[in-house]
């Protein structure tokens, strides 16, 4: 790998929300063609394509996309890695470029989720008329609801309350205020699924899903796609000055999975692998949390945002409540978090999310974020997590 690293040459996302007239490939094509146009290259310039999608039941999304926008015979990777799918697609292209297999590649993440109900964590089997112990637990009936919960809102509610139990300072209202921040931020993002500010009272009085997460504190299921064109530093040097000026440096690209912890067998541990990903990203980029101008983190639930302030080391260990109370993560604070509106308001089309978080950072680093621009942004961090667990962290820097 050359020392001048990996750069994002072009990036695009569709509006998140309901797209009843577009299928998965239409959305992927819109994002991909947008990213190619933004990069100033075509499908013929690319050496690799990685496509992320979770809900199409094994369809070759990448090849179906090629049929719509250009079949050039390049290797295609269809990736699936829970909510970290988009970040994994991005990283797949980065690995191919780092390995020297090609110097330009495209990563796409796409999902159709509008109208999807509750996403359960495990597969559930039907109850039979007579009970026979089955499966790894020897259970006679589905265990969700009988032995704890497997649903995402419940799992992340427990993760938030566990943090509160360990360090103190949390309350139902605190989590609602975190959500209110992100809903307020989304009012400036025309691509967000929801752009309506919500008061703390409205959020607390909305439908309870899994205490303390009410409906607006849960990620919004929606349709959407995002795509990025990546280029090696060596290749970038041969391109036009305007392409070089707008390119964003990928200073770190890290993917982790759960290391063994005692309790991760019964409640997913989203903390340890995020901490390890953040640490690796800071070490490999030479960027410290103090250098960050903005962060897009995986607020799949309001409770998750709190623990990730700590996991991403935006505050001292145990200091997430103080970090929030200081006003730091608001868009006028010292370290704005989720100025896009986050997953709670911008929306969470699962496989698109990882690239969409990178898109948000890139727009600010390029000074192209419009009304929601964080002035003078030079360094940003994008984080996603997929239960199971997988964590992706990307550190991005503006071209000098």
């Amino acid at each position, binding site marked *: 790998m050359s020392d001048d690293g990996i750069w994002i040459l072009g990036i695009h996302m569709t509006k998140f929300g309901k797209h009843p007239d577009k299928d998965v490939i239409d959305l992927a094509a819109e994002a991909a063609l947008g990213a190619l146009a933004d990069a100033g290259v075509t499908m013929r310039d690319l050496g690799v394509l990685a496509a992320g999608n979770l809900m199409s039941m094994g369809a070759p999304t990448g090849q179906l996309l090629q049929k719509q926008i250009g079949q050039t015979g390049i290797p295609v990777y269809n990736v699936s890695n829970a909510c970290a799918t988009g970040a994994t697609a991005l990283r797949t292209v980065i690995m191919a470029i780092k390995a020297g297999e090609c110097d330009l590649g495209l990563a796409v993440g796409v999902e159709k989720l509008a109208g999807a109900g509750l996403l359960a964590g495990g597969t559930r089997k039907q109850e039979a008329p007579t009970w026979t112990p089955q499966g790894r637990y020897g259970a006679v009936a589905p265990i969700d609801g009988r032995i*704890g919960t497997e649903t995402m809102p*419940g799992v992340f509610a*427990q993760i938030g309350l566990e943090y509160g*139990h360990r360090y103190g300072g949390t309350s139902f209202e605190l989590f609602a205020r975190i959500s209110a921040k992100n809903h307020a931020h989304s009012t400036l993002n025309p691509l967000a699924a929801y752009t309506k500010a919500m008061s703390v009272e409205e959020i607390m009085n909305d439908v309870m*899903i899994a205490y303390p997460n009410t409906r607006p504190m849960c990620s919004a299921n929606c349709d959407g796609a995002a795509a990025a064109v990546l280029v090696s530093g060596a290749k970038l040097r041969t391109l036009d000055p305007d392409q070089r000026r707008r390119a964003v440096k990928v200073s770190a690209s890290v993917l982790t999975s759960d290391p063994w912890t*005692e309790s991760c067998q019964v409640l997913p541990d989203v903390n340890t692998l995020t901490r390890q990903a953040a640490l690796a990203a800071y070490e490999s980029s030479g960027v410290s949390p103090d250098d960050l101008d903005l962060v897009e983190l995986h607020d799949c639930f309001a409770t998750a945002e709190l623990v990730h302030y700590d996991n991403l080391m935006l505050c001292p260990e145990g200091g997430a409540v103080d970090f929030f109370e200081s006003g730091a993560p608001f868009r006028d604070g010292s370290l704005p978090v989720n100025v896009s509106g986050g997953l709670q308001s911008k929306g969470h089309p699962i496989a698109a999310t990882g690239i969409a978080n990178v898109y948000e950072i890139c727009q600010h680093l390029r000074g192209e974020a419009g009304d929601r621009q964080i002035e003078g942004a030079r360094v940003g961090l994008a984080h996603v997590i997929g239960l199971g667990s997988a964590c992706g962290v990307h550190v991005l820097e503006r071209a000098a």
Partner: protein
Amino acid sequence: MDYLRLEPSPCLLAHECVACGARFFDRRNACAACSGTSFREAELPTEGELRTFTIVSYAAPGIPVPFVAGVVDCGGTSVRANVINVVPDADHVRTGMKVRLATYVVGVDSEGTEAIGFGFEPLDGATTPADARETEPGKEQP
């Protein structure tokens, strides 16, 4: 459940890795912590502390709501379970509360076989008002 032993008195049994002591409730091909392949049976304390919880109000069809789901620390081993015999609201459930193992009849199948489930109930009866049972339709108490 394979890991619930009812006689002589109910308790939970874990598969404990002989090499490193890691505990699992399902059968394992090898240990997730050290990759060892030998396991022995380990009996868990029946009392523990509620480390975290949630009150699920919205679940898949057929699951009675609201219910309290949580993680109980039983002498250093984490157990996922429902908290039962408690009013399912944030005034009656708190992290750090002491709980003990309790069993109940989940239901009876078409051949009359009873299925016994388990949960944890507050050790301190003060959090269990007399009307707690009526809040859990379909669940018989042990």
